[in-house]
């Protein structure tokens, strides 16, 4: 009987420690879009998702993991690759976006092809140029490892491996990738102050950019055509490929600008390497077409001084804590020692 009490107490204690906030909505942020009640976060599920995110077992020939194209130090984008690089050096058709604050995102991919974070992992797993596998063969492979049945058991109290559990665990890890501790955030929380230059840049930003790159997420989650000339090789019409509606021609999802210092190259096809090129586009090179965003029909006017200030502001969106958070990095404990 006494034993039972002790076990009960232990459970209680464990549930208390587990309660220690796995996910927090930063102050003054909107409510997340993700419905956590359908995929309740737990430490063990997040850990499983993290292992899966970093494990090349998800690809056909065990060479490519999610992290191959989404590396932490570049805010989970594919550093230095304009177009992402997949299995057997296949080149994809788009630049991998940075991954952060995904709980607030409603549609995924640059054209919104994916409607829920849970379903996102299916796309790269099955894409012949990315991981070249399929969710059923991934599940089969995981079942035949030493490591995973016990990790699934820890996470779900059941060692059977299914597509649903696999996807939900990966989603859990991605949900924890919250970046909300940049200098900008600290300034808003009155823990830091902008320099005069940054402040000037902030004012310019609010005037010219924030209709689309809306604070605090620095995206309004919508799709827009910013007048980039179409790449004649890739012929990527963006959102129109999904909706088949000509009004959506050349529209791409408005990306967040958080950690923009490290998530280069920029745009859906990675055509720009530097922020200065991006700003020059907005002031000089917008191609007018039917679907171009109304606020960009007249090119933005920014002096070179103002561009420098605006850039200084964009650099305050860098969140070092996010980029170097140990909880988001390669899980040595899980993936290295046990075979």
């Amino acid at each position, binding site marked *: 009987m006494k034993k039972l009490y002790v076990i009960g107490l232990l459970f209680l204690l464990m549930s208390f420690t587990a309660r220690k906030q796995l996910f927090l909505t930063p102050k003054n942020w909107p409510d997340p879009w993700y*419905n956590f009640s*359908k*995929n309740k976060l737990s430490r063990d599920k997040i850990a499983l998702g993290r292992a899966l995110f970093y494990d090349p077992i998800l690809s056909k020939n065990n060479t490519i993991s999610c992290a191959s194209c989404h590396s932490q130090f570049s805010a989970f984008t594919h550093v230095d690759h304009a177009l992402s690089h997949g299995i057997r050096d296949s080149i994809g058709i788009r630049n991998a976006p940075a991954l952060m604050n995904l709980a607030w995102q409603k549609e995924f991919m640059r054209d919104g*092809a*994916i*409607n*829920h*974070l*849970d*379903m996102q992992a*299916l*796309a790269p*797993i*099955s*894409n012949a140029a990315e991981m070249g596998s*399929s*969710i*059923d063969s991934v*599940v089969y492979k995981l079942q035949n490892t030493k490591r995973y049945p016990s990790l699934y058991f820890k996470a779900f109290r059941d060692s059977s491996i*299914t*597509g*649903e*559990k696999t*996807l*939900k665990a990966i*989603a859990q890890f991605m949900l924890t990738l919250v970046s909300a501790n940049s200098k900008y955030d600290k300034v808003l929380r009155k823990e830091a102050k902008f320099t005069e230059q940054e402040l000037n840049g902030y004012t310019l930003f609010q005037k010219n950019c924030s209709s689309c790159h809306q604070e605090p997420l620095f995206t309004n989650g919508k799709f827009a055509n910013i007048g980039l000339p179409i790449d004649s090789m890739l012929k990527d019409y963006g959102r129109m490929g*999904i909706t*088949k509606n000509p009004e959506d021609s050349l529209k791409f999802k408005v990306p967040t600008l958080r950690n923009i210092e490290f998530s280069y190259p920029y745009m859906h096809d990675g055509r720009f390497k530097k922020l200065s090129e991006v700003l020059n586009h907005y002031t000089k090179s917008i191609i007018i077409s039917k679907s171009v965003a109304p606020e960009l029909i007249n090119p933005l006017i920014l002096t070179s001084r103002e561009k420098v200030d605006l850039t200084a502001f964009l650099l305050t969106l860098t969140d070092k804590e996010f980029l170097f958070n140990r909880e988001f990095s390669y899980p040595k404990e899980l993936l290295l020692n046990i075979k």
Partner: protein
Amino acid sequence: MRFTISIFLIILISYVQTSFAQKYSPILITFSPIIEEEQLVLHKRYVLKDNDTLSIENLRFYISGIQLFNNNNLVWKEKNSFHLIDQEDTNSKIISLTVNKNILYNKVSFNLGIDSLTNVSGAYGGDLDPTKGMYWTWQSGYINLKMEGISSLCGTNNHEFQLHLGGYQAPYNSLQYITLSIDNPKKINILLDMSEVMKSIHLKKEHHIMSPSDSAVKHSNTIANCFKIASP
């Protein structure tokens, strides 16, 4: 002490079981694809009218949201009602419903496909698990129906056709709502007449449908109209 507790539990469980059995009875709904008036056999070569040949290699579809009606009044609906019917798996073609014995009904309704809310609500298990191969990977959404085979009408390589019908967003929402009147309430045998289906789908022109589109909606509607109750 333990012994009495277990005896008590056994009695309790059997009581609950018998009272449950008295109140509820299973209703079996069977889905039977047929062709040329016989049960469809996968991989078999059929000769249709005009000497066209056809073999079906794969036929799978979702049935969801099963409801029973009595003279247009909803009297019962299945909870969590999602069933993948797979021509290759006999068990999948029989759905057992647990319905209160006192309920009277003379109509059954169901969806061919998966509703839009489920389509946008993330990952599910069971018949909806994406490992079942009925989910598009490059663009989110369930495939409501897969029909693959070989037809002399197709001018494709090896005369193959592949119809993957789905799509949950307007204007390409291909979900179909089907209502059928039933004569014998205890055993509901629903036929899917593939000869009828083949009459309305022009495989010569449309042999590969792999994404939401006008044709996917049109074909889904055509197929929905080929479900009928077997005459007893």
